[in-house]
């Protein structure tokens, strides 16, 4: 979230698309109800299903799964065509005025630089025009045909209400009604919050779905505002925390991109990742990358990381290729992996194409499952009738189960969607021999270290020289770990403006990442968490609910990264002169000498308004990007592409260009393209989702949750049910090109057939929680059906739009 949970109550319009918070985030959803009750906010929902969120919405519009960009592109066009913009904001705080390379082109669904063989773009033309000083050229009149504003207009002019309706199946009047709600927040003193979740990310165009909303919120001037923002609702506690700490090997903690084979030394590595400002006078905060990275190396390797050995750069693993979830299981499937550590993860159930995942696991020599429960994955080798039809005699994989404690059985922190890090205390002891995850990992590490000491090895240093300074090496405490993550001064940290002044004494915990240095004099395990355990103590354990602003900022409750800032980009909540756009909900203002207000300023505190330091300090431009340069895989502007399994035989936006049917830059592995189904065999669009009563594949093991929702079901509309002779309560079989599942039919008015490009498209809804292990009725794993292809940027699989057929079982 750029904002936070409580801040939702400040919104005038709550726009929910790509998420279903009433269903999946019922506790956080209370703030939507608060906004409705106390601010007369309007709740608008766009979703393939009339869902639990829609049940309390002021307006609902249906949409075909996988066509969000067409819808949102239509919204962008509506805002531009009807002049529903926050003009001053757009002009000053976005890259609308930036001039783009003249070679940049977009032709029939494909941007300039496409290499079909590689399914990738050369991005040489996706860039600004630069002046002689290396700064981006701008046209403040926004009239130059190559300025971002004009290119944006041109790009989205094709997304007319008629086109939106044709592609999405959303009735035109419903689409226009949604546009009106959204456009009402172009006024400087009105804001819209956007709540989204996996309904946007789990598409082959997932990241671009979110980019669309970034463009919309920038055009409306809703970023940085109370009640505004783009708010990703994170699921599994502690999924925000694990993302912050390098969910994938592609990043190091704090979203630092990890070294690869192309970065042979520290200088090369840092050089590529330390940007120069693209406009004069901007903060260009990522210029501090070397400080964050060096402090991380010092945390890991301590005295063994010195200037002379490049701060132990050579000890870090260098990636040779992708390491996302699909690539890992693909390598495993190809027999290129020997062992697999599976910690707090149930991939047989949660990764796309269960058959492929199961076959992949069967090629391992060993698998270690660290989990509180006996998961489906840990029993992938065991036959459960047709739910898991395997032959253990054919599976050589040796499985070890290491019972871990549940969250309530040890202390630590959770980081919520609003980036608030909150300490939690241990409630009870774990059962039997279960151990904390940290203790399990510590035991493995100490054993490895002992083996290297005894037996030697090709490259023992990364293990042997790792810092492990815990009071009980076999049992690092959560307190020690959080202090270590925060970091400390190894030598006195001096004020760069006045070197006689000591900012932090040697040995002290650091108060903020502003104190980090790239000379090895500071440690920090994750720069964005710096300040969580300062010299003042454990700030994540603070529980002061006082809220003087009334905006729900509660600055003394827990610790929000970064630097306890509650609303990101909050400088943008005030105009160029530093006056809040909305005086009733002021987040930040220029006091005459400094930035102050109801939040920690996202700005150099003494940057006078006339210095024109722009609010988006993490961007070298200083402004928000309507045009994302070379940063996205499939283009600087989001374009609608069909899901890889589309009910249409072409992209209605580009009917004559088969290259532009589905995301041209999405990676497809050998064999997976053939495993995609065609509409003639699988005529219905399927989408998978979660239910309030359950939590992923976990609570099916809990009796009460099982009582609340006991059995796999499949939702279909009344019209499809009638065509197929299916009644509510009948058992049905749902097939995709990768397998089948069975479930109970829920026949509903809440899923309607949509009129898409002249044909009728039915949607089949499939909850994802069930499996063969647990207290619920034994059943199939929904991901038996889903395709093994992901978003071109994140590789998140396309769980939300694929093709199936359905019949009475």
């Amino acid at each position, binding site marked *: 979230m750029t904002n936070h949970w409580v801040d939702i109550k400040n919104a005038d319009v709550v726009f929910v698309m790509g998420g279903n918070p009433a269903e999946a985030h019922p506790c956080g959803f209370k703030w939507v109800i608060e906004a409705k009750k106390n601010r007369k906010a309007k709740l608008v929902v766009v979703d393939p299903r009339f869902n639990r969120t829609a049940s309390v919405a002021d307006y609902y519009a249906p949409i075909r799964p996988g066509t969000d960009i067409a819808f949102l592109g239509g919204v962008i066009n509506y805002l531009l065509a009807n002049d529903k913009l926050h003009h001053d904001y757009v002009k000053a705080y976005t890259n609308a005025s930036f001039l783009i390379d003249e070679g940049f082109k977009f032709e029939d669904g494909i941007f300039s630089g496409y290499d079909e063989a590689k399914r990738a773009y050369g991005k040489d033309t996706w860039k600004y025009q630069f002046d002689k000083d290396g700064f981006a050229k701008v046209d403040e009149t926004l009239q130059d045909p190559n300025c971002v504003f004009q290119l944006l207009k041109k790009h989205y002019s094709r997304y007319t209400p008629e086109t939106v309706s044709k592609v999405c199946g959303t009735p035109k009047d419903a689409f226009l009604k949604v546009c009106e709600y959204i456009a009402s927040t172009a006024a400087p003193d009105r804001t819209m919050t956007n709540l989204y979740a996996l309904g946007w990310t789990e598409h082959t165009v997932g990241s671009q779905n979110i980019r669309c909303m970034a463009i919309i919120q920038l055009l409306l001037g809703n970023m940085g505002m109370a009640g505004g923002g783009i708010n990703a609702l994170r699921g599994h506690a502690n999924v925000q925390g694990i993302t912050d700490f390098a969910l994938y090997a592609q990043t190091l903690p704090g979203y630092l991109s990890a070294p690869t084979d192309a970065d042979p030394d520290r200088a090369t590595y840092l050089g590529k990742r330390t940007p120069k400002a693209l406009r004069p006078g901007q903060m260009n905060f990522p210029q501090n990358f070397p400080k964050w990275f060096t402090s991380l190396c010092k945390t890991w390797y301590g005295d063994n990381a010195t200037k002379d050995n490049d701060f132990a750069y050579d000890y870090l693993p260098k990636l040779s290729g992708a390491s996302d979830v699909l690539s890992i299981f693909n390598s495993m499937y190809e027999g290129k992996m020997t062992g697999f550590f599976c910690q707090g993860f149930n991939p047989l159930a949660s990764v796309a194409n269960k058959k492929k995942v199961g076959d992949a696991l069967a090629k391992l020599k060993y698998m270690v499952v660290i989990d509180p429960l006996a998961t489906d994955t840990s029993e992938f080798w065991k036959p459960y009738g047709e739910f898991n039809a395997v032959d253990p005699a054919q599976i050589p994989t040796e499985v070890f189960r290491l019972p871990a404690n549940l969250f309530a059985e040890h202390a630590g922190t959770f980081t919520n969607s609003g980036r608030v890090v909150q300490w939690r205390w241990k409630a009870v002891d774990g059962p039997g021999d279960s151990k904390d995850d940290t203790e399990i990992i510590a035991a493995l590490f100490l054993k490895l270290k002992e083996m290297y000491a005894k037996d030697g090895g090709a490259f023992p240093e990364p293990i042997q020289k790792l810092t492990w300074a815990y009071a009980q090496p076999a049992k690092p405490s959560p307190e020690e770990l959080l202090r270590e993550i925060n970091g400390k001064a190894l030598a006195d940290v001096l004020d760069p403006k006045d070197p006689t002044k000591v900012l932090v004494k040697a040995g002290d915990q650091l108060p903020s990442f502003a104190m980090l240095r790239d000379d090895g004099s500071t440690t920090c395990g994750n720069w964005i968490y710096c300040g969580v355990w300062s010299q003042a103590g454990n700030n994540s354990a603070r529980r002061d609910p006082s809220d003087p602003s009334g905006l729900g900022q509660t600055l003394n409750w827990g610790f929000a990264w970064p630097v306890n800032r509650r609303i990101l980009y909050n400088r943008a909540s005030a105009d160029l002169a530093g006056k809040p756009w909305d005086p009733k909900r002021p987040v930040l203002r220029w006091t005459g000498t400094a930035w102050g207000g109801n939040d920690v300023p996202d700005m150099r505190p003494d940057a006078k308004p006339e210095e024109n330091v722009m609010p988006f300090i993490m961007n070298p431009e200083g402004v928000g990007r309507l045009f994302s340069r070379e940063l996205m895989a499939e283009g600087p502007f989001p374009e609608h592409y069909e899901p890889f399994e589309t009910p249409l035989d072409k992209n209605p936006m580009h009917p004559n260009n088969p290259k532009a049917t589905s995301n041209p830059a999405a990676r497809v592995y050998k064999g997976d393209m053939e495993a995609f189904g065609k509409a003639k065999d699988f005529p219905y669009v399927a989408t998978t989702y979660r239910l309030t009563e359950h939590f992923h594949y976990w609570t099916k093991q809990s009796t*009460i949750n099982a009582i609340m929702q006991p059995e796999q079901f499949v939702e279909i509309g009344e019209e499809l049910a009638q065509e197929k002779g299916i009644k509510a309560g009948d058992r049905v079989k749902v097939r995709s090109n990768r397998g089948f599942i069975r479930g109970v039919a829920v026949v509903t008015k809440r899923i309607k057939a949509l009129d898409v490009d002249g044909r009728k498209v039915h949607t089949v809804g499939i909850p994802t929680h069930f499996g063969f292990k647990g207290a619920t009725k034994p059943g199939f794993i929904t991901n038996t059906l889903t395709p093994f292809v992901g978003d071109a940027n994140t590789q998140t699989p396309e769980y939300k739009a694929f093709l199936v057929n359905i019949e009475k079982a």
Partner: protein
Amino acid sequence: MALQSLDIKQRSATTTPAPQARQTIEVAKLIDVSACIGCKACQVACMEWNDVRDEVGHNVGVYDNPADLTENSWTVMRFSEVEQNNKLEWLIRKDGCMHCADPGCLKACPAPGAIIQYANGIVDFHQENCIGCGYCVSGCPFNVPRISKKDSKAYKCTLCSDRVAVNQAPACVKACPTGAIQFGSKEDMKDYAAKRVTDLKERGFDKAGLYDPAGVGGTHVMYVLHHADQPNLYSGLPVNPSISPLVALWKGATKPLATLALAGVALGSLFHYVMKGPNEVSKEIEAEVEKEDAQ
């Protein structure tokens, strides 16, 4: 679970007057259907606080689970899909005991002290006195009590009388994530409801209103409905609930006889079919009442 005997207002099948020394305020639970997302946290809280567990059942083609009230499920969410004027609504109602001011169950109950109404309005079953006859089931205009097959006792929501007795809100209220279930004095709840109704009217629900039906003397569980003119849209919430005329008869002219019936005297001819199956019979009675209403 008992409050103090001082708080008793009425006891089933009891003719001695109730204590009147103590003054207490009437409480109410207000269910704002317009803020309810059907998450079932209330169902879970009810099971956990009261230490009851229903069976892991089946999906029967709807979101409702358990599919109906049972001796172990004292509250369930009922989901109904309603399409009117080209607008689809998914109306989700938390069902359970309404704690009527004029409780049909209590009136119908022949077992002394098996059903108690407290001065604060809570209607509670005392299972140690319950004889499992099922009259409460037919006496209830909302079809709420259920007889356990295990111990032949009647069960339903207690409005967490044990929690309320020590100044805590009912478990479902505490668990509700959106504030759709509120608890307080009946007066405060009516004030709160009035605000919600105003908001709903501003959002275009002209007929929004409070459900506090007069036919049972008002209730201590009330609903804010978007369509207060059509309560039956909400999974058959009765439009004009009232106590079955059979119960009125039992309560009135025949009551002294009926009391004797406990000692084995025959009123069975009047009630014998009541014994066959509470639900079925209650439907029969409803049908009869509806027929009468229609005339």
